[in-house]
């Protein structure tokens, strides 16, 4: 067990001597919310791990639990109503058990996060320079002047022209793409080991989205910051990430290298998602879709949660489905997976 002083002070030294380097190891994370009608289960037994510098996409449709999973890693869910079970091992330390004070030392320092809507994440009454340098000064005892210098350097790093001038501007003076760049500058100023990005390009136009995804990928490659990219857009994952985790109805259903998942998905849901996308070349004709809808959290079917919508459902699917290793480095929550040949993005 790494002590917390190690965690907040060490930058490069790895105090662990585990064989496989794992930056983040999420084990059996289950989340529920207390409501007037009792506990509402949201995610169940979510497990995955991230290697240093790895870029992992978490994909799924609305309500699958991808956003709450991201928030729970940094313990950003309301403690009054959210019940979190499981372990969040970050460099060996269980974040789920850290005191609030120690957790604050991790947030923004070792793990940073950016969100979909940059305007609601920025304070309208402070300049962007103030906000970026505040993120740095919260963790490092430097002067205002040095904080400002670092903010300017961070703005330059994310490709903002004339950073000395932009530094003194307010969020409303910037375009949507610039604001998201400011958020990225703020998130990366402490050189975190992990950046969690929750739909960071969804509110942006497609030409600006291309700029931001490109920036995130190249910054991650250059600085070695690992990335968790939460999105509903499989195209964005294909371009940014090296691994793809598919979630459905609060569970991880597939975990695979991104190219493999796109070419040969091993879970029927991943396959269905890929086939539902209207391709640029395929015109007219009937678009495939997944019948039915995601069951509400309090009425999940027993066994495989995708079973009512799955065209491969068979006797046996009503049993609880564990993640199985379908190939080295690939898992799927489907006992039929070894026998199924599922269409992917190309057929």
């Amino acid at each position, binding site marked *: 067990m790494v002590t917390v002083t190690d965690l907040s002070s060490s930058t490069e030294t790895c105090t662990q001597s585990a064989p496989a380097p794992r930056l983040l190891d999420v084990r059996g994370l289950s989340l529920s919310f207390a409501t007037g009608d009792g506990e509402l289960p949201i995610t169940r037994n979510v497990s995955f791990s991230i290697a240093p510098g790895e870029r992992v996409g978490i994909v799924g*449709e*609305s309500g699958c639990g991808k956003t709450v999973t991201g928030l729970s890693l940094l313990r950003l869910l309301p403690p009054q109503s959210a019940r979190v079970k499981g372990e969040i091992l970050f460099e060996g330390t269980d974040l789920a058990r850290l005191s609030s004070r120690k957790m604050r030392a991790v947030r923004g320092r070792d793990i940073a996060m950016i969100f979909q809507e940059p305007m609601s994440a920025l304070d309208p009454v402070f300049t962007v320079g103030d906000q970026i340098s505040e993120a740095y000064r919260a963790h490092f005892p430097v002067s205002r002047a040095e904080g400002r210098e670092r903010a300017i350097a961070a703005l330059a790093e994310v490709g903002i022209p004339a950073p000395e001038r932009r530094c003194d501007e307010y969020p409303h003076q910037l*375009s*949507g*793409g*610039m604001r998201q760049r400011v958020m990225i500058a703020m998130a990366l100023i402490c050189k975190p080991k992990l950046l969690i990005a929750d739909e960071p390009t969804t509110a942006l*136009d*497609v*030409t*600006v*989205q*291309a*700029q931001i*995804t*490109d920036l995130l990928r190249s910054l991650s490659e250059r600085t070695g910051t690992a990335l968790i990219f939460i999105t*509903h*857009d*499989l*195209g*964005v*994952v*294909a*371009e940014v990430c090296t691994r793809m985790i598919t979630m459905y109805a609060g569970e991880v259903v597939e975990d695979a290298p*991104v*190219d*493999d998942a*796109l*070419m040969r998905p091993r879970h029927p849901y991943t396959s*269905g*998602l*890929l086939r*539902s*996308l*209207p*391709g*640029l070349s*395929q*015109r*007219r004709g*009937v*678009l*495939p*879709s*997944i019948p039915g*809808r995601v069951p509400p959290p309090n009425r999940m079917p027993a066994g495989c949660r995708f079973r009512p919508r799955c065209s491969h459902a068979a006797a046996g699917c009503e049993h609880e489905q564990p993640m199985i290793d379908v190939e080295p480095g690939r898992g799927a929550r489907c006992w039929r997976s070894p026998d199924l040949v599922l269409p992917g*993005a*190309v057929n």
Partner: protein
Amino acid sequence: MTATKSILAVRDLRILFPTRDGRETVKAIDGMDFDVCAGETFGVIGESGSGKTTLGRALVSLIAPTHGHILHDGIDPASLSTGQFRKHRRDYQIIFQDPNAALNPRMTIIDSVIEPLEVMREGNDVSRRRRGIEALERVGLSPETAGRYPHQLSGGQKQRVNIARVLTLRPKVIVCDEVVAALDVSIRGDVLNLFTDLQREFGLTYVFITHDISVVSHVSDRVAVTYLGKLMELGPTEDVIEQPLHPYTRALLSAEPIPLPSTMRIDKRIILEGEIPSPVAPPSGCRFRTRCPSVQPRCAAEVPAWRELKPGHAVACHFATPDGPPPDNQKASIAP
């Protein structure tokens, strides 16, 4: 598509809005000319600020042109009396992006669906209800849905209700403004398939407005590319998607994230610099010149003429040829 009768004729359309302080003018649409043919699906693609939403609203007379005309089947709705216009506009309907915002949360589904018929004073309570139920069944919703409230339905079901509501009027033209943008991928296909079926059954004309190239290329016969209130390119969908003529269209297509493995994404990606300028003070000459990788001095001086370079395929670029857009300048940033 065989029909060539123009059902929507847009002529020198300009729509200007004053800014909040009244001192400046937002040029939402700054000169557009095109026709939508009866029975076709006409796609309109553009990023925010391109004027596509304003255009959609203007096409169904929700916004009056500041300048120019929109003819509905040869008739200028602005020339009609209030009574005539009321009857006329039922043929030209619109469906919006957010299926929640379009339904009154305090009205049952059937009441929302038959409200247009009540407004039109068509039939009696019994016949209206019957038509409402028929419309719900036609869009794939069970009759039990009729008595429910919007909050009891999923997003996809709510969008079906909005489609049913428009169908009760038996319109000729439906403008679809980002109708699947709010829906999850796995049900998007279903709703798009429904649109296609309804078109076949009722001979509808669609104007499909979206920022999503894959959606527009799937449903449209022809596609118009808009940028800062102007058309950049217009042509048959296959032509525009497979061999774009305008540098903006090419960049837009290249920016679309494609869910293919890295080995299959061979195309060099063009990443445009900067963002769309403000429609209050658009650039002189060609509006795209500030971000264009092929910009030349002439682009600032002269507004590009609208040139038909291939049959039915026109473009607003000085340097485009029938073979494609002009080559990039050296300074253009091309990422692998």
